[in-house]
């Protein structure tokens, strides 16, 4: 079915020779894209390849420097997102771009609120929003403000919003970066339906599995340039990756298989962190958790099961009001992040936009921030040392553009995530809590990071790991704590760790 439109129809949308520069960076040069009605089209490329920029240029967020855009054969210039919507282009941008202060229902419907007697009909608004969320199989109270929910839920809300627009073209920029398998499944069901209705869908993701599951065609960008357009079925994985990073790759294969690796080391390790009865009213019920030195403990669970909440307690981001936490057998109050850091605990939040990056500061400043904070105000890391550190981590994590003086807000999403990882790795904590650390990071860098994590463990660092990507969890963990409905239900260790086992535990079997 996918080749049908090759001859049949003209593209719904075509972008040709797109050029876009930002001060000091050429984000796009000669990028191309064709979208046909009734297809799901993957836009692939490394972090910073220009995918999001291409989308923003298309929807008029950034003015275009050169090139043409045609929609259904007509050449168009889009003045802004509002105009794009009017033209039938519906977009979910990377990162959650919704209003945290408004209710979920409003976020979905604002701009298109149902009216009655000339005024907004709130009942109907809430009803419709709830209906839409249900269609995505997310059952939440839509009258609560958006910031009440986790990033994953917010992503679903953004998707729900985009579905509402009467669109010819649907653009999804990494909508699945923090979604679990279940939600992805729901999303794909919806996408398939829309596709069959003749919608052209552009889908950006770093998950190859998803690409092969849902897309019909792939466009690859590299360094802002067009590499090629391929039918998904004709392009094997290895080749796809090679085309994305521009060289042949053995990296994927070279990943160490650590499943069960923890088994032999576990017995001799001392306990680093011991949480007993730790909990916080209204967010997570008391739980026990033991993390040993050099161990990777994963928290697994469904959307909103309380993984992030648990992690935040361990770091003091929220103050636990029950139970106690011991680190290296010393009782620690964990009243603030500061205290946690002083005790060698670090935490990389899942919410990089609001809890991670300091947007107006440079890459260098963002990287050294946590280290500097732990050193205090007056022991200033010399500028020379800062530059060295920045250089080192930019190289190590392949941050692009490799300019330490770039403002972090101008980096691509994946590169921002790398900066955050760099920030915490630099502090060399005893326990590193990573909440969705590889969110939005491209396939090449992801393996690098996983390798890095494992090598750090080998050196004795402990890690608490949260990821919506089960495969990743399986690959790195020594122990998995499963959460359901905001309390810890079970622990799975060592040889018991298997996909099926976890799935059962999560689902409550």
């Amino acid at each position, binding site marked *: 079915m996918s080749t049908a439109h090759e001859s049949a129809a003209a593209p719904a949308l075509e972008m040709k020779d797109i050029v876009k520069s930002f001060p000091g960076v050429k984000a796009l040069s000669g990028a191309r894209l064709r979208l046909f009605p009734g297809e799901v089209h993957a836009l692939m490329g490394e972090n910073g390849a220009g995918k999001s920029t291409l989308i923003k240029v298309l929807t008029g*967020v950034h003015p275009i420097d050169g090139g043409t855009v045609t929609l259904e054969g007509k050449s168009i210039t889009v003045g*802004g*997102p*509002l105009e*794009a*919507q009017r033209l039938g282009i519906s*977009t979910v*941008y990377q990162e959650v*771009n*919704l*209003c*945290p*202060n*408004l*209710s979920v229902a*409003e*976020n979905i419907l*604002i*701009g298109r*609120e149902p009216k009655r007697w000339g*005024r*907004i009909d*709130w*009942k109907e608004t809430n009803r419709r929003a709830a209906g839409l969320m249900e269609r995505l199989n997310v059952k939440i109270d839509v*009258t*609560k*403000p958006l910031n009440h929910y986790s990033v994953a839920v917010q992503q679903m809300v953004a998707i729900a*919003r985009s579905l509402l627009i009467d669109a010819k073209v649907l653009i999804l920029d990494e909508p699945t970066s923090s979604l679990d398998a279940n939600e992805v499944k729901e999303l794909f069901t919806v996408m398939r339906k829309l596709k069959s209705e003749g919608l052209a869908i552009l889908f950006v993701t770093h998950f190859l599995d998803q690409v092969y599951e849902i897309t019909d065609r792939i466009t690859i960008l590299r360094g802002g340039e067009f590499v090629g357009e391929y039918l998904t079925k004709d392009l094997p994985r290895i080749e796809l990756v090679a085309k994305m990073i521009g060289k042949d790759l053995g990296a994927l294969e070279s990943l160490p298989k650590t499943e069960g690796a923890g088994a032999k080391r576990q017995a001799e390790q001392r306990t680093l962190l011991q949480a007993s009865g730790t909990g916080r009213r209204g967010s997570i019920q008391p739980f026990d958790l033991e993390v040993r030195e050099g161990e990777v403990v994963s928290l697994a669970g469904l959307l909103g099961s309380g993984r992030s909440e648990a992690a935040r307690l361990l770091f003091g981001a929220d103050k636990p009001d029950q139970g106690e936490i011991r680190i290296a057998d010393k009782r620690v109050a964990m009243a603030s992040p500061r205290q946690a850091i002083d005790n060698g605990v670090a935490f990389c939040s899942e919410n990089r936009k609001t809890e991670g990056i300091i947007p107006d500061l440079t890459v260098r400043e963002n990287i050294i921030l946590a280290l500097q904070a732990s050193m205090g105000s007056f022991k200033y890391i010399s500028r020379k040392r800062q530059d060295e550190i920045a250089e080192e981590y930019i190289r190590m994590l392949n941050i692009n553009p490799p300019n330490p003086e770039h403002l972090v807000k101008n980096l691509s999403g994946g590169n921002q995530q790398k900066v955050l990882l760099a920030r915490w790795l630099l502090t060399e904590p005893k326990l590193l809590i990573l909440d969705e650390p590889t969110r939005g990071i491209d396939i090449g860098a992801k393996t690098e990071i996983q390798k890095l994590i494992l090598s750090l463990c080998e050196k004795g660092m402990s890690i608490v790991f949260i990821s919506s990507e089960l495969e990743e969890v399986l690959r790195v963990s020594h122990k998995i704590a499963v959460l359901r409905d905001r309390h810890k239900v079970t622990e799975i260790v060592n040889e018991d760790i298997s996909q099926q086992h976890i799935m059962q535990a999560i689902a409550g079997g």
Partner: protein
Amino acid sequence: MSKLRIGSQFVPALVTMVLFCLMFLAASAQYTGFFSAQVFLNLFIDNAFLIITAVGMTFVIISGGIDLSVGSVIALTTMISASLVEHHGWSPMVVIPLVLVIGSLFGWVMGYIIHEYQIQPFIVTLAGMFLARGLCYVISIETITITNETYTAISQAKVPLPGGNYVSISVVLALLVVGLAIYLAHYTKFGRNTYAIGGSESSALLMGLPVGRTKILVYTFSGFCSAMAGVVFTFYMLSGYGLHAVGLELDTIAAVVIGGTLLTGGVGYIAGTLFGVLIQGIIQTIIMFEGTLSSWWTKIAIGILLFLFILLQRVLVSRKAKAA
């Protein structure tokens, strides 16, 4: 209000109302003559213009901006009204709509500059503040007394209430504006867009909301409210004067913020603002009933009362938020 979600955001506004009632009762116990309906109604009579200004300001602050020009626009409105009515013999029926248009236009221009040239609202409206007050002096340095019958009649008219109490026409106008504003804020696209922009302007833009138009409209509305307040102020003072309402912008901002609106934008309720104004009014009234304070102790006492109130509000809000 029942259809509105009473979420945690509503707590500050609610706490403000409760605290207001407590303050009123406490003062009634302390001062003879305080506990009367008329004293309560006087809060409205004396602060009608502040209520109206604060309503406009609430929109601006919810959108994440600020408007420093309100006091000056009030002065300018009184000045234009007085000069046209007294010196040029225009009819109030023409003058009042005219000044409302002028005020709105003034706000529109500021909004346009803020949005179109991406200049911080603080500085644009500060320039607006200088300009409006400067224009007053250009019209006349001296105060212009209004003797026009329509104005004096409206000014002295009493809307009788049961029990021999009364309010002024201005109070009715102010309450109408409050009602309109609540409707605008919660039941129109304009209002919701304002909240959205305050929550996150860049998101609102990406969500395809008319950010520019809404922002400009918000300042226009604030300009309109200031002019409306100016009209009410003219009834109240029966004069035009360049030094009217000096420093009112701070009172207004304080009232809005006390009412639970966040200066960072996105959160706030008109009803909260109304009580914010009343809180300020009651602090004033308490001090006047006290009647033994010297000028400096007056200021210190205002500061202390404000502090106590805000502290209580803060404690209660964080307690409630935790419980929720």
